[in-house]
């Protein structure tokens, strides 16, 4: 079921087009990644979906509700984790979560229970009485998430939630995203860290200059570039007969030798690597260096735009 449907969306800031006739849809239960460099239009799309910005042109329906006709009902279904740490420094962790819970309509025992659950979910139960100014960057980011999920929204939108934090906190957050998804929430996750999107998202749209330049699963996106892995082996005493024998190894699509380097293309590099090494060693070929490159989203973006993702 299509939970979020965006059709022909356009948003301009003066003469600059932030989102250009964009259409995409998110299926219920997805972890949907919006990947793109800074200025690609990710935050603008999120702000429009959350009702914080008005689109110039286009239709957005969330859970079959048109955002223009009933924005409040749409907002009830969404939890936004903003890119910035938007918390009150003088309030405790519990008070911050409780405040946003009240804005979402929670009261009484349900509010208390959900606040405790949110604290527990982000691992801040023992820090409930601490204020954000006493927290580390990672703890603040986790509290930022807790405030957005306290009302257990159907859709959770995370706008670059891992900016500026240590690897341990990043892993905790990425793990939290997966758990939230397992608990039934549909997630929209924006980032310009392609490794994050690649590791947690099952559907990805790559944006550039306000347009979707590619969409699909990560496997589908990688196939845009190539469906072959590349193995480069630098060796010291390669000979013609060894090369001919190498070409007979099963699973290798292409083998060539130049400047003491063997270039191999294979559909699955890992499965053929053992056979290649066995053949080379049995023919007394001495290996100096091995490089293996698998296509990733960075390669996809590079091939589609001619630029690197973080340029």
């Amino acid at each position, binding site marked *: 079921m299509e939970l979020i449907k965006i059709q022909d969306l356009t948003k301009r800031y003066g003469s600059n087009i932030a989102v250009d006739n964009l259409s995409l849809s998110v299926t219920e239960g997805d972890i949907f990644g919006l990947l793109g460099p800074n200025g690609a239009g990710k935050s603008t799309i999120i702000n429009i979906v*959350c*009702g*914080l910005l008005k689109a110039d042109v286009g239709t957005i329906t969330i859970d079959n509700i048109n955002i223009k006709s009933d924005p*409040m*009902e749409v*907002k*009830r279904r*969404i939890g*936004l984790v*903003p890119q*910035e*740490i*938007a*918390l*009150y420094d*003088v*309030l405790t962790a519990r*008070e911050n979560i409780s*405040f*946003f819970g*009240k*804005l*979402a*309509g929670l*009261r009484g025992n349900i509010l208390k229970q959900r606040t405790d659950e949110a604290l527990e979910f982000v691992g801040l139960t023992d820090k409930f009485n601490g204020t954000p100014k006493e927290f580390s960057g990672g703890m603040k980011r986790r509290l930022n998430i807790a*405030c957005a999920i306290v009302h257990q929204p159907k859709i959770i939108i995370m706008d670059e939630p891992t900016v500026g934090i240590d690897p341990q906190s990043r892993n905790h957050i990425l793990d939290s995203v997966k758990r939230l998804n397992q608990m039934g929430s549909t997630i929209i996750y924006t980032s310009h860290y392609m490794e994050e999107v690649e590791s947690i998202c099952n559907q990805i749209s790559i944006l550039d200059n306000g347009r979707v330049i590619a969409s699909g699963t990560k496997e589908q996106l990688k196939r845009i570039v190539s469906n072959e892995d590349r193995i480069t082996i630098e060796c010291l005493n390669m000979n013609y007969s060894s090369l001919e024998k190498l070409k007979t190894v099963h699973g290798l699509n292409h083998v060539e030798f130049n400047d003491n380097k063997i270039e191999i293309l294979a559909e699955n590099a890992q499965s053929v690597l053992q056979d290649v090494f066995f053949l080379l060693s049995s023919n007394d070929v001495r290996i100096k260096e091995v490089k293996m490159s698998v296509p990733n989203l960075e390669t996809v973006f590079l091939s589609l735009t001619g630029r690197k993702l973080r340029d």
Partner: protein
Amino acid sequence: MNWKHVTTIAINDIKMSLRSPVSFVLILFMPIIMVFVMGSVMKPAFDMAETQTVDHFDVIYVNENPEGWAKAYDSFIRNSGADYFSLVESSEVGIEDQMIENGYPVAIIVPSVGNYVQIIGSGKGLAEETVVRTLTGGFLSSLNFTIALNDSIPSDVSPNPQSKQYITEKTPDTLFSNITSYQYFASSMLVFFLLTSGMSIGTALTDDRSIKIHKRINAYPIREKEYLIGKIVGSGTIGVIQAILVIAVTTLVFGVDWGDKPMEITMIIALVIFISSAIGILFSSFIKSSGALTASMTVVLWFMAFLSGGFTGAPISDTVSNLTINHWAFQSITTVMTGGEFSNIQRELAVLLIIATLLWGAALTIYKRRVTNE
């Protein structure tokens, strides 16, 4: 309108304002400390007001009595009083309103019927009132001495056997009592600190924008007007707490008499809080950081307080003072404090209402534009 959202925002703001120890002291104790310090320091100056010299001033004068002594008083007061004051001829009707509107310190009334002279003081010109009372008292003493002499002469040689009634100065009709230094500074500090309470809504709005909380709140099912009203209620409540505290403490500790018109005082306080909220919203629409907002609002509010005489005991200039919000609020509070009625503060309330309307019109227009542009 979802009032639960309004109260959530308001309670949160009050909680945050009172949680910071610095804010707590500034909001709740500073007004009291200022009243104590200024009231104590300026008390001698207020006490000396009775002995000060006065410039030439205007006196409202009504003399409709046809009797001979009244004509004699008329002649006397015109000649002897000319060195000190000018008489502004008037009628008995609406004399108190004339005094308030035009700032006359004293009125002399010789009613058409009765053997007395009535002197009414505005409560704000003690020295002027003393001059008039001294001159009148001197005249009446001489006159009464003559009448007493007449009484001692046999009736067949007395030129005017009927005039055995002495002429009196009727004193209990003073319009307002004189204001004390503590009353003066309690009211001026109340006005000043109520105006500064607008800073709390200004800084709250600015902070919410700068740390992106406003954006985050807007992602929840809450309308912009609910958010803004919540902020206004929060800041207004702090103003009300301040006002209650200032009135209670100054009454109990310094013996300040706030008059017997709580409704009028409440109306004035409500108007000042309303105005201060509009100022806070206006400043927050132009200034990006709460520090800069606090600094600029403090400069403006202190400047207005000085111009209106809020810190000095007297305005630098009456004309310039009229341009400040403090002047109109202060005048209305002191009028009520010293016994004035609602009718006596209508003009001040009307001016405050106009200021509030203009500021709110501007504040809401600019706020809406700012939110739309965000």
